[in-house]
């Protein structure tokens, strides 16, 4: 069985930052593995550990810098990694969902996995759509917002028996046929830390870089329908009354508020 995990390097923003045009200035950005994808990687590695002969392949769309992120997936147990990049992709300011799905679909068609795991959303652009769009592009089944997966059924019966986390503390129990794309919610497992040995081994693993040409795609395929026209810090609507002073003074004022509200006795 083959499991393909899509991972994304996301930019995280420092508390104080400045915007230049329609971008946050580079000096205020750090890069990390998308939180949701970390859970997807763990789920893939757990499938490999539970089954015989399960290969886990991590795939990302990203510039050379993102190799650091995909090596995290390798360090945690993915067997191989594929990175898709091209100057034509670099030129696009905000990749739309269709483009991401097209690029990943080309890799999936090459790899022919039984299961694709992706994070429900990415913390930077928060589209929350790549997994389902990818499934539809491929003609795969899918499930979004998966917070439990029956590993044995996947391995033994070829069915993804999942729980989908609905709003308000309700879970939906659903079976989907394989091949399928499962969009993984945080909390489905406990992502492992990469071991030192794993990190060392990951450094020596080759990352297969695929260009548009390699994937039999052209620059037209990555033309985005989206154009970011403005970026700004949301106006604060705060009318909070701030409790000032040192920690002791703040605590004292806070205690007074709680007593006034009648929720704590004298």
């Amino acid at each position, binding site marked *: 069985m083959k499991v393909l995990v899509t991972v994304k390097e996301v930019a995280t923003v420092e508390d104080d930052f400045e915007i230049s045009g329609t971008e946050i200035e580079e000096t205020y950005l750090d890069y990390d593995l998308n939180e949701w994808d970390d859970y997807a990687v763990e789920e893939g590695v757990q499938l490999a550990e539970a089954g015989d002969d399960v290969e886990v392949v991590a795939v990302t769309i990203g510039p050379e810098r993102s190799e650091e992120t995909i090596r995290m997936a390798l360090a945690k147990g993915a067997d191989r990694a594929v990175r898709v990049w091209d100057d034509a992709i670099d030129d696009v300011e*905000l990749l739309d969902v269709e483009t991401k799905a097209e690029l990943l679909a080309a890799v999936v068609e090459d790899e022919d996995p039984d299961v694709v795991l992706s994070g429900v959303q990415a913390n930077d652009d928060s589209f929350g759509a790549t997994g389902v769009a990818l499934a539809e592009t491929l003609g795969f089944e899918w499930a979004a917002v998966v917070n439990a997966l029956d590993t044995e059924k996947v391995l033994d019966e070829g069915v993804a028996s999942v729980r989908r986390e609905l709003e308000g503390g309700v879970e939906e129990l659903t079976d989907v046929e394989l091949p399928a794309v499962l969009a993984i919610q945080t909390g489905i497992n406990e992502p492992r830390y990469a071991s030192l040995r794993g990190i060392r081994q990951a450094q020596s693993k080759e990352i297969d870089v695929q260009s548009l040409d390699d994937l039999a795609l052209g620059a037209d395929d990555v033309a985005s329908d989206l154009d970011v026209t403005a970026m700004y810090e949301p106006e604060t609507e705060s009318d909070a009354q701030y409790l000032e002073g040192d920690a002791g003074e703040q605590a004292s004022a806070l205690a007074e508020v709680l007593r006034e509200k009648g929720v704590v006795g004298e």
Partner: protein
Amino acid sequence: MSDVLVVADHRRGDLRDVSFELLTAGRELADAADGDLHAAVVSGNVEEFAEELNREGVDQVHTVDYGEEFNHDVYTQAVVALAEELDPEFVVTPNSVNGLDYAPAVATRLGRPYVSDATGLDYADGTLEVTREMYGSKVETTVDVAEGPFVVTTRGGEWPPVEGSGDAEISAFDVDVDEDAVRSTVKGFEEVGGGDVDIGEADFLVSIGRGIEEEENLALVEELVDATGATLSSSRPIVDNGWLPKNRQVGQSGKQVTPDVYLAIGISGAVQHVAGMKGADTIIAVNNDPNAPIFDIADYGVVGDLFDVVPALIEEFGGEPPSV
């Protein structure tokens, strides 16, 4: 004329509130595009749902009577068929868990641009401008989507629900569902994390978030809870980490709470969390980041390090802070 098709959300016999918010967003778009507002409801008791969706500003309600509950394969087929029949400029669904599970497939199948989680929509001269948040709500962006028709999902709580009743035409829409293409089966539902404590009933919630950093540090907040007689709740990451059980989670995927006082400690205030606690009478936030979104909805703000403020607060109520 450019019409709008909105698709309602329902679960276990009830339309969800976002469905009525969607009618407002849909009507605004229809006005901007000089078109009609069509609402669709798929599966369940569609006739009863259609009557409820017949609210002010709705021109037509379409019912697809197939199955009881949400199934994304059926929804995708039904909404695609409706869009092909009505040819609307916009297909709009809630950015709900179910919206996430079929709207991208609809956009892909129709070959339309897709933009999710809109907090604002403007349409003029054939261009749709969508307001969205990025980087965990730290920035807002406007994104122009050229060349419709479009598929858009809207964030819950951003548009007021339509209240007044309407005079829409209600009609059944027959979809010849391809059973072979229905390859997912919903087996049932389960309430999770019942537990012995119902945070939905508490008058005073002390709620903890990512700012607590380590599981060991929970002892600090537990001491505050003991000293004040509060009930302990949390944001999602604490439950994801397995530090507290699911029945303590406040938010979109957890519990909706309405206490007299909600004391949010080390919680940044992500939109999914706020959805669960904005109904509190008084919201107090303790956070060391003065720009944390939680302060936007707080009545009282304490900008400070929780590891200094919470021990001092415990002492205020005669408790003894543990060393963490």
